[in-house]
């Protein structure tokens, strides 16, 4: 699948993917981008990921903490807040409804 197309689809749900990636515990930015790539979602560039994380932080959905690195620069760790959990739960079920609608519409074409 073309990465461009994937990136376009991802734009609408990237915040939910990021919140979901945090349900197993805190992560720092680069770790998150690796996790999303490993999940098959393609490359999420830093220029997309960090502004999104800043928006989630501003909305109170994630909390952050700086840890000093022993060698390189420090890392900013993100973790899910209660409000983030709730937001993810609500929006994930909305997404499921929406994606099943799209799925039903495309059923004849995709097989």
């Amino acid at each position, binding site marked *: 699948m073309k990465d461009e197309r994937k990136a376009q689809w991802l734009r609408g749900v990237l915040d939910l993917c990021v919140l979901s990636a945090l349900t197993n515990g805190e992560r720092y*930015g680069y770790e998150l981008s690796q996790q999303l790539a490993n999940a098959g979602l393609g490359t999420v560039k830093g*220029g997309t990921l960090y502004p999104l994380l*800043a928006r989630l932080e501003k909305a109170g959905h994630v909390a952050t903490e*700086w840890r000093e690195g022993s060698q*390189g*620069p420090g890392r900013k760790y993100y973790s899910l807040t209660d409000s983030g959990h709730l937001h993810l739960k609500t929006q994930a079920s909305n997404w499921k409804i929406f994606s099943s609608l799209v799925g039903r519409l495309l059923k004849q074409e995709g097989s």
Partner: protein
Amino acid sequence: MNMESYLGELTAQLQRLGVSEGRIGEIIAEVESHLTESGEMPVEAFGPAAEYAEEMAALAEKNSEHTDDSANPANNPNPADLSTIRYHHRTFRATAIDEMGILKYAGKDGWELVDVGALALFCRRPVDLSLAHRWEYKRRTGTHNRIIKEEMAAAQWEPCGNWIVFHYFKRENGIR
């Protein structure tokens, strides 16, 4: 564009947009951390510095800090300085966009940078101008303060102030 010049431009742009120093430091450290680990080219990963700065500035708190002249060491001269050479002190107003240009001319004119602050370069020059040296300056950008200092010391650069992620170094460059 290499990482250091990208971080420098990003810092200058964030400063121009009125983002607070603390927040600039965080944004820069995160970009630096990501680039160090991923090995990506800065513009490829984060886009042009001006655009990334605009996007992050829109999300950041605006700067309410103002420069505080009591932090100016010229107001509290080091007693050791008084015993030997008498100095004139002068504070040059500057930003991360123009400060190296200002330092280049000030250094040639015998002004020695002794510290930096927000929008300010604290300089001194012997009252007796025959004692004045020329100074040259270099700026390094990044959060690896210790490593940068070691690298610069190896080339006889002396640290003379830090501001957020900018580290300033001076070196004597002949008689004025």
